[in-house]
């Protein structure tokens, strides 16, 4: 990469922000750290980031992260935005993703995982911008673009978050194989509890069902996990 890619972190906790900055800098990214919405807005106007990591809860600005996300998405449709938050409720995740975030991570995530995510988002960004070898595979009506982290079903794009993409990818890669929850978590570079996996899968199913009412490729294997139905 020619220019160091620039990551903006909006995190009200100074120590945590500093740790993230250190880790990202070690990976060769340029990093700006902001502690609230106002300074983030000003800073980003001055130094436009290539990727933004936002904490939902910004000090007294309880949902400042959501607000900031909305503003950034309004300015740029392609800027990768990732939520990294201690708020791990289903409701918050859905709200964040609906505002156009590309991913929603709990602060449980390890730095290693975080770096993988950031790298993946950049990769997708690059792939979407064009160029790069076409790495893709198909499973019946499903087509997975491993560069752009996108998925189509019956040739219609399915809007998935990064986590959801990785879950689908992990399942569809080996149809008929049961993936346990742990395996799915590993694949998605995250630590999730059972219920979150369940609701992720549910959300994925719903997205596919939105395209094809007869979608039933993701099968629940009770007590074990999920598998992609081999047709």
């Amino acid at each position, binding site marked *: 990469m020619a220019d160091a890619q620039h990551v903006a972190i909006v995190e009200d906790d100074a120590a945590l922000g500093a740790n993230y900055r250190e880790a990202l800098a070690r990976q060769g990214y340029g990093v700006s750290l902001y502690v609230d919405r106002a300074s983030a807005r000003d800073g980003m106007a001055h130094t436009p980031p290539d990727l933004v990591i936002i904490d939902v809860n910004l000090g007294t600005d309880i949902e400042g992260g959501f607000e900031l996300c909305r503003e950034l998405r309004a300015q740029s449709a392609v800027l990768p935005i990732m939520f990294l938050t201690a708020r791990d409720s289903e409701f918050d995740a859905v709200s964040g993703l609906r505002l156009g975030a590309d991913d929603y991570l709990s602060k*449980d995530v390890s730095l290693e995982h975080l770096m993988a995510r950031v790298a993946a988002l950049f990769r997708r960004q690059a792939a979407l911008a064009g160029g790069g070898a076409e790495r893709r595979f198909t499973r019946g009506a499903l087509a997975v673009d491993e560069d752009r982290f996108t998925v189509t079903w019956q040739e219609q794009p399915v809007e998935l978050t990064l986590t959801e993409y990785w879950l689908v990818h992990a399942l569809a890669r080996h149809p008929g194989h049961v993936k346990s929850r742990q395996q799915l978590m590993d694949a998605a570079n995250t630590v999730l509890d059972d219920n979150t996996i369940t609701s992720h899968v549910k959300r994925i199913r719903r997205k596919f069902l939105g395209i094809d009412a007869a979608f039933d490729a993701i099968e629940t294997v009770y007590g074990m996990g999920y598998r992609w139905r081999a047709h």
Partner: protein
Amino acid sequence: MRFGLRRQLLAIGLVTLALPIASALYLRETEQALRSAQAGFLNDLARGLAPLVPEVDALSPPGRADEALYAHPLSVTPTLDGFSTDWRLRVAPVPAAVGGDQLRVLVGERDGTLWLAAEARHTVSDAPRFDVACGDNLGGLVLTTIAPVAPGAVLPATTATGFAGRIRGDWQPTADGSRLELRLPSGLCHNRLGLSVRAGGLGARTYRDSIPGALIRIDAGLRDALATNALPGIETFAIDQFGHRITPVIGTRSGGTEAPRKGFAQRLIASLMGGDADAGSAVFEAQAHRPVARALDGALAGNTVAARYSAPGGGLLLVDARPFGGGALVLVQDAEAILTLANPSLQRLTTAIIVTTPAVVLLLLAYASWLSWRVRRLARHASRAVDARGQIQDVPPDTAAGDEIGDLARDMRQMLRRTAEQQRWLASMADTLSHELRTPLAIVQSSLDNLEQGALDADQRRLTGRAADGVLRLRAILNAVSNASRAEQAARTAETAPVALAPLIAQLRDAYAATFPSHAFELRSDAAPTVVGTAELIVQALDKLIENAVRFAPEGTTIDLWLETQDAQAVVQVRNLGPALPQGDPARLFDSFVSTGGTGSTHLGFGLYIARLIVEAHGGSAAAADWREDAESGVVVTLRLPLAAS
């Protein structure tokens, strides 16, 4: 049976019945005292009267009672016409002692003349022949014989010496015989009189042997003696040994014989006393020639008797009868119906007590019912407010009642509300705490991650490794907590659909066998229940049960999975060998943060808590118990889920 508030107040209410009971007893005693005082007064009069009457016999001539003829005093002088209808007597002729209805006789007396009326039944063609016999205690003789030949006046066919001309008669044939009316001077008969008739084969007589039966007549001496000592307001007479009244009724009663009004109180007291009169409804007929009353029988048997009788034509009589000269002396006085009630204020008091007492008891009962209803409603609210685990489910509605029960209800309501708040706070605290810990934990972890990226020597790596382990464990705890609250959330909001349990559990058994190769899993299912719910959540609940069972069951043992249907519920049981449940309430095992320890990694006892949250969200229940079979023992956890309506 429980002695509840209503029963208690009813018992207290019944105590008020003591008042009418005491009143009734008092009234009864008063009444008895008054009656006996009245009887005593009459008794005194009678006792005072007896010595004033000359020492005379009240005896009629001895003989058989059915041979006796009573000479009724006549108020008018009859016409001698063969009929006794003009005698103005209200008595019927008496059947003869021998021959019965074939000869019926009636005797009257007025101004020294005896009147004799006889009805004989015989064939009309036969000519009757009447014999009139008189006598005294020494013997008798036929005074005259009458053998009529034609209707109308008859003369004696034969007459004992000296009496001819003083006996007159009139004979009339009738449809079934004939009638004879005879008049003779009283002096001809001393104290015995008899009549016999013969006609064809007929033979009837008023006496059996040679001596005629007694002629019972008013005893002039006795009458005069009683008349001399007549008492105001009191009737006096004497009876002979047969019970015949042998004096006129001397004196008059005060005459207040109007029928007594009978109000509720009177009737009640009358029935308390066993009736107004002592002898029931028996009427005492003083004017009868032979008054019939048990009191008189008593007096003839030698006892002084006082008794109350109904008077002819209404009212009450007090009768005092005492032995006198072989017969009895009888005093009769008017009596008040209910002496006690002669006092109007006492009567009003009685009525008031009788009316108010049941009203008070009813009022008390109603009040008690109302009170106990309120208390029971309060208890119902209280027991409904708190579930088996002590969780406040439902705060009872507010009440407007201003009394102590209202205060109690309000206090209880407030207490429940505060406890509910406290419980909510406690429940949310774990969640909040785990949430608040995430950021500092993330700082520690990211610092460690950064540290490990740097150049560390072996010792430093060992230490950061330990710190990382600690972080991992701390995170596991936080995840367990949020997992529980997430499960609760999911159970509340999840979409439901019919879930067939049998195939689900069969699938799970295989999954568990694969996941936990250290244990064997045996499924026993003899039912195919379907419940309404979320399969993922039900599976999650079962996962928790299995995790728990695996944790306690020794390696290599079998964990039993049972599925059956009981009372419209699907029952899933997970049974494992192993240690018994700890002491205490088994239901507490399903609370959060309750762990029975055991082996293994971090365990906060959220498993059974989550299982319970899930089954309760499905309208079911969870329970744990020890089991023992032969030499084996362990724990069985049971989930119950309502069956889907078919």
